[in-house]
């Protein structure tokens, strides 16, 4: 799920950047340091939408660097347990399949795939129903529910299921209709 959130960060700036464009340099550094990162607490920082406040700089003893507290607004993406997502399958193997929803990777174990779908190995590994009408393969779109999230300092990884009502394949690239 996406959030629009206000975060704060202490930015260190080398004295060579001081001058009339100090604020612009701070903002560029903030964007470079923060956009694209992931924290366990807030999720993936997708984009910075604005800078609310830049506090007074504090000179660090011994180095000459100055630390500025910067408050900024950004869009973050973080998955939650119980959330329903539409994801694109990236890899299929006999243990299950991996899918991506935005920047987040989700694994769906074969135990959480309906029992009437069997793994078919081959050039294009896939899970297929016995009548061949439904297939999950690379690039298929699936709707899944997040049932667990694992969070560490820089990454979020999820476990999902498609074994419930209204979950499953939305479209697949080589649909057998």
């Amino acid at each position, binding site marked *: *799920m*996406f*959030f*629009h*959130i206000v975060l704060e960060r202490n930015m260190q700036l080398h004295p060579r950047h001081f001058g009339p464009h100090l604020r612009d340099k701070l903002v560029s550094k903030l964007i470079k340091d923060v*956009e*694209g990162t*992931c924290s*366990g*607490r807030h999720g993936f*920082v*997708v*984009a910075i939408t604005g800078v609310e406040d830049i506090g007074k700089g504090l000179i660090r003893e011994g180095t000459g660097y100055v630390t500025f507290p910067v408050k900024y607004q950004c*869009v973050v*993406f973080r998955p*939650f*347990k*119980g*959330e*329903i997502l*539409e994801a694109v399958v990236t890899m299929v193997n006999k*243990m*299950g399949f991996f899918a*991506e*929803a*935005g*920047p987040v990777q989700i*694994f769906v*174990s*074969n*135990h*959480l*795939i*309906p*029992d*009437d*779908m069997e793994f078919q190995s081959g050039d294009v590994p896939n899970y297929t*129903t016995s009548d061949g009408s*439904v297939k999950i393969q690379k690039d298929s779109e699936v*709707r899944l*529910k997040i*049932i*667990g*999230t*694992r*969070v*560490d*300092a820089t990454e979020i990884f999820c*476990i999902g299921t*498609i*074994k*419930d*009502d*209204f*979950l*499953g*394949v*939305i479209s*697949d690239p080589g*649909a057998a209709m």
Partner: protein
Amino acid sequence: MKGMNNNSAKIPHVTIDSDSDSDSEGFVEELPRVNFTSNGKAASGSLKTGGKTSSLSKGDAGKGGNTYISGKGGKGSASTAVSAKSDAELKLELDVPPNSRILMNCEVAELLQEIHEHMAILSEDPKIKIPESFDKAFQYAKEGNHFSTAQSVKQVLDPLKKYGVSDGEICLIANIGPETIEEVYALVPSLKATRSFNQGPIMEAITALTNIKVPK
């Protein structure tokens, strides 16, 4: 088409501490056994599922949330009926950070579109690199957006707040783009508790959403 979720087990609430950035956070392995029902046929054929609703008996219980840890069991293993929280009943455990606002996919798509247009100009500078997660999130928000404009979705769904529907649940409904009321209650099980109160307004909202849906 209706999903058939016949799980009537009382559901103990499982929470994880989501405040910490600690490395020691893991999956919630302590989920009790799960009563699986076979995946029902999804709404109006737009979802394709494994679909044999009778292939698992109602009493069949997989080893639920533990299966992805233990790697065993689940498939066809009949276990004794236990009162368990099924994945179907897993409610959204939303931990809304302070100073934040939940965004629907349609809102994010519009917001990121503006940023993308600015970035297109900035990206001509070879020193500026657009992060991969931006592109992925932008693509995801665009593809997950079922509706014409975010404003119209807000107008349709905001009145549900009066009927006890939380911001997270409203966001989930907007992101799912449901076609039937059963789909809403199956995918957002927390709404079932006040079904008698919110059913009418949710049905009206679904009808209104159908009118502003953009065909894909």
